[in-house]
Each structure stands twice: as structure tokens, then as C-alpha cells.
């Protein structure tokens, strides 16, 4: 078993996140799907860093991905609350304020 197994697992998890983001309409679950995708990219970065362990570049990148994911979750949930105040629902099919 080599690093390829980690890469396959990361791409499968990314696929779950992408499918959840595209197919679900609940805004909360779409935000969680974004977190799934960011997490799978972290697995990829760490696996490639383990291939070449003479430096820490991949782990430094994963560290920054975690920090940006925290900022993204805070802002996304703030936007979700503002959206809920206007529409009284989390259904993204009703998000038509900028459409017409």
C-alpha cells in the first residue's frame, strides 16, 4: 500500500463534498460540503509532504488551509443568518434576490 491509496481516498472525499454541494439545497449542508472538500485537500497535501519529508511545505500549506477554512465558515454562517432573516428559509432555490 502506497501513497496512491491516500490520493484515491482524498479524491473520493472531494467527490462526496462536490456532489453534496451540487445536489443538496439546504444552505447549511452545502457549507458542510465545502468543509468536506477543504478537508480532503488537506489529506492530499499531507500525503505528498510524506513522499518528500525533507521539508515541511505541504504541512505549512495545510496549516493555512485550516486557518482559511475557519474564516470561511464564520463568514458563510453569517451570510446564512442574514439570508434567513430575509427569506425565512434556508432553501437555496429561493435565493433569487440578485436574479431578476
Amino acid at each position, binding site marked *: 500500500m502506497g501513497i496512491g491509496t491516500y490520493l484515491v481516498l482524498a479524491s473520493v472525499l472531494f467527490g462526496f463534498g462536490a456532489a453534496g454541494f451540487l445536489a443538496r439545497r439546504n444552505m447549511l449542508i452545502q457549507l458542510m460540503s465545502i468543509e468536506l472538500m477543504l478537508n480532503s485537500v488537506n489529506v492530499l497535501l*499531507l500525503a505528498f509532504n*510524506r513522499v518528500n519529508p525533507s*521539508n515541511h511545505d505541504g504541512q505549512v500549506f495545510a496549516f493555512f488551509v485550516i*486557518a482559511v477554512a475557519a474564516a470561511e465558515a464564520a463568514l458563510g454562517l453569517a451570510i446564512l443568518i442574514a439570508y434567513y*432573516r430575509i427569506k425565512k428559509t434556508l432553501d437555496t432555490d429561493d435565493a433569487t434576490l440578485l436574479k431578476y
Partner: protein
Amino acid sequence: MTGPGITLFVVTATFAIIGALITISARRPLRAAMGLLVNIVSLAGMFLTLNAHLLAALQILVYAGAIVVLFVFVIMLLGPSAEVAPAEGRLASRTLSIASTIIVVLAVSSSVAYFNPPWEAVPDGFGTVEGLGMAIYRQALVPFEVISITLLIAIIGAIAVARSRTE
């Protein structure tokens, strides 16, 4: 890779996939958040097999401790209306999106599955607090400061967006 590493990898990979499936298929958002929690904790265990000890701890602290708790707070704030009725219609676009995702994942997985470089010996301090901390402060000091300003702006922006009166 040694035997215990393979065992830990198989267990954590199974739980990560189960958690991801719960997250994207659960009807209730609280169950989806619990699936996300399972996924995150098992990925933190998997980081241990890749010699990323500090990042495993950070994954638990930041994702499980902050982000999932934030999701749960928002679900509690919204109450029953956090749930959205199941989709009616739009079957073609949903099927198409899932099918295209599966095709892309199969293409990527089949092209990377046999990438098997030999496992190199890990140098002392790889992925520990000292090793990764020194790497961050030597190579990425400016991005580290920029990320602190980014988090500060995100906090201010979240307050400004969530407080705005819109009715």
C-alpha cells in the same frame, strides 16, 4: 509503512467515508453536523499515519472544536426551520451533477491510484510542534501574519453581516 499504520489507515478511512456520506445525505442538519464531526475526527487520526502530529491536534481543535460547534450553534439558533423540505423536480440537473462528479472522481482516482514512490525514512522532528513551528516561522512568517489579519477581518465582517437589519 508498518502494520499498525495500515490498520489505522483502514479504520480511519472507513469512518471518514461513512461520516462524509452521512453529511451529504442526512435530512436533518444536526445529523449532518455529527457526520462532519465523525469525518473530521477520523481524518485527524489519519494525519497521524502521515507523521503530521501537530496538524492532527490542530484539526481536532479548529475543525471539531470551533467549526462544528459553530454549525451546531447556528442549527440551534434556527430551530426546526433549519430543515429544508426534500427537493421536488429538478431530477435531471441533480442526476447530471452527481453523475459528472462520479465520472471526474473515477478519472482522477484511476490516474493516481498507482503512484507508489517508496516510503522514505522520516527525519527527526518531522511534523512535530517544533519541526512544523520552525518551518512556519522560517519560510512563511509573512503569510502567517497575513492570516492573522485575515481572521480578524473575517470576525469583523461576520459581525457586520450577521447584525445588519434588513426588514
